[in-house]
């Protein structure tokens, strides 16, 4: 009977541990699939940086002009923590973006396609886990701001090739050149959230040329609108970076923003602990509109909440088994404990004796040597 119980317990433990391992592997694969959330780790492999994202509503009033303010606010917080920028090194890289609208994109030949335009600024492409197929990313330091990064779908739709960097495209008659071509979204959540419409990323300055076409004037703040701000910030203590960003937004943009610590959002303890709040994902109580990469991350986050919670459940039975075994062993090994204790004491005493012996011999040798030197 005892053997049978032992076998059942062993099987259950084995299944639990197997489940634990499988869930761990699945969780890691899922978490790794969202490369967007690992920019902090790429920026600093030691893990001293956190990647913080902030998403804002369309009417929040957060614009390009606000970027300098929040950067100054973060740097000020870091300065108080004795962290200051070094020469030629960026302390807090940042990026910002906003969905701008859909438009028809044409090329020099007959190709044309509908595309989703995203206005980007800062080090946007450092944060995104795009795979560059051709060309290069544009940056704010470029002399010309008419570069465009398009995805493979758009490159194929326009030119029938993915090696099209340097070619021209036209949006509402305004010419841009293809700076780089990126791979389409690869993971299932990304594909689901990104949709079928090809993507095109343009700089805010480049979008100024589209003002007339989109009915935007220089005075209108729409073309400066920012709905996604991200930064990689040193995190000397827990939640420092998160608080530094959140402190800026919490008063001015109350109820119009959401801050996420990307570096920690997929941590098993974080996700398993968040299981009790998983129903929050079903509630839509804000006018926030997330970009597709954030929606994909939220899907993964939702899945990981269950995976890591069940993984934790899988550990319950093996832990109980181990505790139970320890108790039984403790009870059964009482006489062995005594013998072991005597042997341990004897061994310790022996070690102490040997140590003293060695010390005495050394002292004697030193003494003899000094006497010999003193001899005439």
């Amino acid at each position, binding site marked *: 009977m005892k053997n049978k119980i032992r076998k059942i317990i062993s099987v259950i433990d084995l299944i639990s541990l197997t489940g634990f391992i499988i869930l761990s592997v699945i969780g890691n694969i899922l978490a790794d699939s969202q490369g967007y959330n690992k920019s902090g780790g790429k920026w600093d492999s030691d893990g001293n940086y956190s990647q913080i994202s902030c998403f804002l509503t369309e009417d929040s009033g957060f614009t390009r002009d606000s970027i300098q303010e929040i950067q100054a606010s973060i740097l000020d917080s870091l300065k108080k923590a004795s962290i200051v920028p070094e020469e*030629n090194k960026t302390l807090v890289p940042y990026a910002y973006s906003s969905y701008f609208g859909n438009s028809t994109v044409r090329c020099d030949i007959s190709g044309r396609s509908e595309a989703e335009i995203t206005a980007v600024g800062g080090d946007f492409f450092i944060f995104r886990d795009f795979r*560059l197929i051709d060309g290069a*990313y544009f940056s704010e330091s*470029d*002399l*010309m701001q008419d570069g465009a990064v398009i995805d493979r779908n758009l490159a194929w739709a326009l030119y029938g090739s993915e090696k099209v960097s340097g070619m021209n495209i036209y949006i509402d008659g305004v010419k841009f050149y293809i700076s780089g071509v990126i791979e389409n979204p690869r993971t299932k959540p990304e594909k689901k959230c990104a949709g079928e419409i090809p993507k095109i990323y343009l700089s805010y300055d480049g979008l100024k040329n589209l003002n007339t076409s989109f009915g935007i004037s220089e005075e209108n703040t729409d073309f400066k609108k920012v709905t996604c701000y991200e930064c990689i910030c040193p995190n000397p203590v827990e939640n420092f970076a998160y608080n530094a960003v959140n402190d800026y937004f919490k008063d001015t943009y109350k109820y119009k923003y959401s801050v996420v610590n990307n570096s920690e959002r997929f941590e098993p303890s974080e996700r398993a602990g968040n299981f009790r709040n998983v129903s929050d994902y079903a509630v839509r109580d804000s006018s926030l509109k997330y970009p597709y990469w954030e929606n994909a991350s939220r899907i993964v986050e939702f899945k990981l909440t269950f995976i890591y919670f069940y993984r934790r459940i899988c550990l319950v039975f093996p832990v109980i088994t181990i505790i139970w075994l320890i108790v039984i062993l403790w009870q059964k090994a009482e006489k062995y404990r005594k013998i072991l204790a005597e042997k341990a004491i004897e061994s310790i005493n022996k070690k102490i004796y040997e140590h003293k012996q060695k010390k005495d011999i050394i002292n004697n040798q030193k003494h003899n040597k000094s006497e010999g030197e003193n001899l005439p």
Partner: protein
Amino acid sequence: MNDEKETLDPVKRRDIIKNILIVFLAVLLVLTFFSNTIMNKSLAEISTERAMSGKLTERIRGSGIVESNQSYEVKTDGNKVINTIMIKSGKEVKKGDVLFTVGGKESTDLTDAESALAVLELEYQKALLTPDADYSAENQAINSARDELNTAIAKRDNAIANQGNVQEAKNNYSYNKNQLNSLTKLQTKLQSVITAIDTDEYSMAAAEYTGEIIALKNNLTDAESAYNTAYSEYMQLISGGNSRYDEYSEKNPTEPETETTSVPTEIPTVPVQNVSTEEIENARINAEEKESIRDNAKAEYENYKYNLRADLVNQLADTENQIDSLNIMISDYENSMDMDSAMSIDDLNDIVQAKQTALEELIANLNKTKSADENQAKIDSLDLEAKKQEIDRQKQKIEKLKKENEVTEIKSKYDGVVSSVNVKPDEETIPDMVLAVIDITSEGYTAQITVDAQKAQKIKKGTQAEVINNWSGNVEAVVTDIKSDKTAGSRNKILVFSVTGDIESGSGIDLSIPCGNGNYDVIVPKSAVYEDKNGKFVLTVTSKSSPLGNRYYAERIDVEVLSSDEVSSAVQGNISQGAYIITTASKPVSPKDQVRMKDN
């Protein structure tokens, strides 16, 4: 289970162990042989490019519209019909080449011009009929004013000359007036007395003219009264049953008689009781005496009254004559002395001054009117002249239109290239309509691009730009001017290019303008430069030889980006020309990771 173990054949057990060992060794052997291949498959595949030295040029791109420096618009002056079009857009034409042939058309312009000429001539004729200015009314007014002035001056002078006579006449006038007043009063008194005599009522009559009449009347009244008393006594005496007395009494009951009555001469037959005849006779005699007295007084009174009235009437007639005479004198004087004569010399001087001023004003107004009329006359003369000239021009225009209707060819005035043709065959033209635009090729083309002022600082005049859409191969563009964008609030600069080659105005041109270039030792693909908290870096490939071949490792090299264009970056760091730079990898590569080169 133990039973099963016990029943297992030792030989069989050895076989099983042997087979397991064989399989294990076989797998080990296979893994050993393919270890390198397996390992390579697990490594990130990379592609590389070699770091080069050379030039790196930053460029500004822009698009503009090519415009001719000078173009010639082919126009027509009249309404015509396009017969044939000899040109098309882009065609090169020489001076004198026929561009269009146009047919004459019943020109509405000519009809309109002729109608306009008729109207102008009519207006001119009407203008000639304009009457001369008439100043007769003004002259008449001036003459009247002048006469009035002269009259006023004469009156004033006369007043000054007759200043003594006037005073005497005035004194006489005053005297006569006083006399008239006295005589009028006298007349009134006389009339009142005459009236009193006529009515025998003298209470209101002037006493100085009544004389003794009042006394005479009183005497008469007294005599009458006495007679009445006597008569009454007599009648009382004889009244006893005497019908005559009764009749008398009834006839004069109580009041005094107003008419003269007489005492009866016969004594009644029936005497009054207790009265003697003597008493009656005495009474009758007394009455008759009283009657006589009364009659005398009455006669005296009547005579006096008659005489007095006649005298007063004579006086009144004299007085009225005098009054009439005085009235005539006064009237004459007053007639001779009008208002002006009554005025003082100062007043007359003022009147003369006013008349003088009025006259001067009239003269000034007349002069002003004349001056205005003269000016108007000059203007009218100029208008007339203008109308005449306009008529001449209209005539010339009509002549020109008549001539133009005969033109059948429109020729090019310059050498050039047709930029646009704006008409179609059989199309009717209107005056000044642009039929075609011809770019004068000898003047060249320009294009303008607006760029940010900061970027424009890197561009110099004379820089040759690369024409991206240079399909013909011979189009060149050179920066000739950099000027400010005058648009309000703009901080841009306008780059002006001189464009030459096989190009037309109106076509778009894409330009890439080099703005400073430099020679760099190490130029790497722009996409190969990464950045993390330690700064920018590139990943290079290092190789190590091993018995199984070369192994490749990624190596991080920190760099500083000196300059970039769209595809390349010039970097500085512990990197040399020829180094293999990792440009892409199949999965994330970290420094010191082993990688495999992409199979070519």
